[in-house]
């Protein structure tokens, strides 16, 4: 019972302390069930979908490139050192593509024993620690640290929200997004919550920050892209 009260207090603090923000602009995406977004060096967007597709979109949302190699259930995407890393939640694979051509390069098979839809929902890279961060969606949420060749380095439970739908490193901090609680969180190096924003958005599944430090969020169910402007 005490666990419940601890959770209740943590949750109340989390929700009550969240800064409510509203999108400044939005646009419809021509992508079925978009599940994550990343901003690229060439100032475009990478978008992955629940159907296992990887796409490059320009700033107007137009599809300019599509990867031939598909997966089952893409849920996380980042660009790093001319490569694109995609997390396929159902197959537990990390699929790697060339950042310029979206040609498939190789994949890593990870292992996680839990429900199909409770796999790695998000992927981020900590440049300071030189580690990939993979986060499971729920039941329970765990933050896992991996080396650059995807060897498990550590695992930390995260219990502050009901689920995690996306993750990204920005200005040296890890940011996490919760779909069910529609909450964006900024974490400390020890994975403690420092700041929260209430997005008041239906089904936010992915986010990134663009070159002007605008927060970009996509909604899976609505297939929309929202620009929230600068939040810090």
């Amino acid at each position, binding site marked *: 019972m005490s666990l419940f009260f601890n959770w*209740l207090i943590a949750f109340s603090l989390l929700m009550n302390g969240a800064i409510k923000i509203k999108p400044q602009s939005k646009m419809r995406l021509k992508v079925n069930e978009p599940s994550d977004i990343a901003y690229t060096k060439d100032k475009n967007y990478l978008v992955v979908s629940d159907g296992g597709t990887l796409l490059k979109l320009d700033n107007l949302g137009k599809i300019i490139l599509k990867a031939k190699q598909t997966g*089952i259930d893409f849920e996380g995407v980042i660009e790093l050192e001319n490569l694109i890393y995609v997390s396929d939640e*159902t*197959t537990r694979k990390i699929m790697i593509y060339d950042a310029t051509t979206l040609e498939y390069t190789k994949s890593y098979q990870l*292992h996680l024993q839990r*429900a*199909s839809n409770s796999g790695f929902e998000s992927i981020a890279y900590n440049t300071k620690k030189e580690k990939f961060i993979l986060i499971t969606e*729920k039941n329970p949420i765990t933050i896992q640290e991996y080396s650059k060749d995807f060897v498990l380095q550590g695992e930390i439970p995260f219990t502050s929200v009901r689920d995690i739908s996306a993750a990204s490193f920005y200005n040296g901090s890890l940011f996490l997004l919760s779909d069910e609680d529609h909450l964006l969180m900024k974490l400390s190096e020890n994975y403690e919550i420092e700041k929260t924003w209430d997005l008041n958005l239906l089904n936010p599944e992915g986010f990134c920050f663009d070159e002007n430090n605008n927060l970009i969020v996509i909604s899976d*169910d609505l297939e929309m892209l929202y620009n929230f402007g600068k939040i810090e």
Partner: protein
Amino acid sequence: MKKLILIIILFSTLQVFSQTQIGSGNSRVQITYRFSSFANYRAGWDSAYLDRKQNKLFLRNAQLLLKGTFGKNTEFDFGLDGAQLISKANDPQNPALVDANLTYKGLGFVDLILGYGKVPYSRNNFVSFFESPFWQRPEIVGGAFFSRRDVGVSFHKSLLRNTVNLFGGVYNGLGESSLLGLNDPSGKFEYISRAEYSYPSRYRYKEIDERISVIPMFSIGVNGRYTNKVLPTGENFAALTQGEFLTKVISGEKYTYGADAAFQYKGISAQFEIHQMRMQPSDSTSFLYNKISKSKAEGKILSGGFFGQLNYYNLKARSTVSVRYEEVNMNDLVPGYFARWGFAYSYQLKGFNSLIKAQYFYNQKEETLIDNLNHKHQFRLGIQIII
């Protein structure tokens, strides 16, 4: 009751993990175990009538579910309920075989489903019992009037960001009894179709707004089913096939049509469904006419009902409260009207994976010619676990 409370306390202290997936890549199997048990108590008996046999503990579910894929395009579902395997009741709300079907997604334009599983009729039928705050489905959609599962071939097509869903299928028409190895002397199928539209996005098959929707969402659906099973002279349907009120499968034409609506916003959710059956027995002396001449009955018997349900989910309190009202008219030719209020409270120990559920039914009115409940009040208290 003390034993039940003890069981609940024991389970509430468990660290419950969710389902497990075996395999990776394109060939995977997810294993899920679902358990539910409750105590049942009935009160307010009619004078000169008392039946305590239902005042006991029930093991409702002990299900082992396998859900998997092979290749990129084929999925399968298989589920068995150990609690129902030795039951002779063949309860359509809770059958021993939960699923045994294949879904092929390789065609691109539609998904094909082959085998035994839920039929695409009634929104409530798509909602898992384990995601309902109640211990029972509304009477009209509980499987006594029309089947909830059957053996058949069907298709599913989603359009416009999954806001439009279309379903159609051909089934044996014997419902859950299709598996009993009983022959159908009529040799005719049942045809079922459904269309639904949701706004502003896809609407998941859930009764509770567990995501606390930040914008109002609704979904509407219409569905119909038709069969014309005419028995040759001297032949009969097996008893279990025809259902509790002997109207589930009839000799003759049977049209069933219905509509439903669902809404959710900020933890409040509501569902409404209405259904009607039009039965035209092939035999003019059918018992369904209840000794009323076929001409006086205009050659048809109507049966139907509706329910409305309102729910409120409070995330901080981990609780859901629900109220439901339902009416059923079992046969328009004779008394068979029934009205019931239902109230439910559920508390999440660990989301819907570990839930305590309490339910109270008040049988407001019943005309007692067809189905005699003979009691006013029913209480249920129990727990469900998904591992």
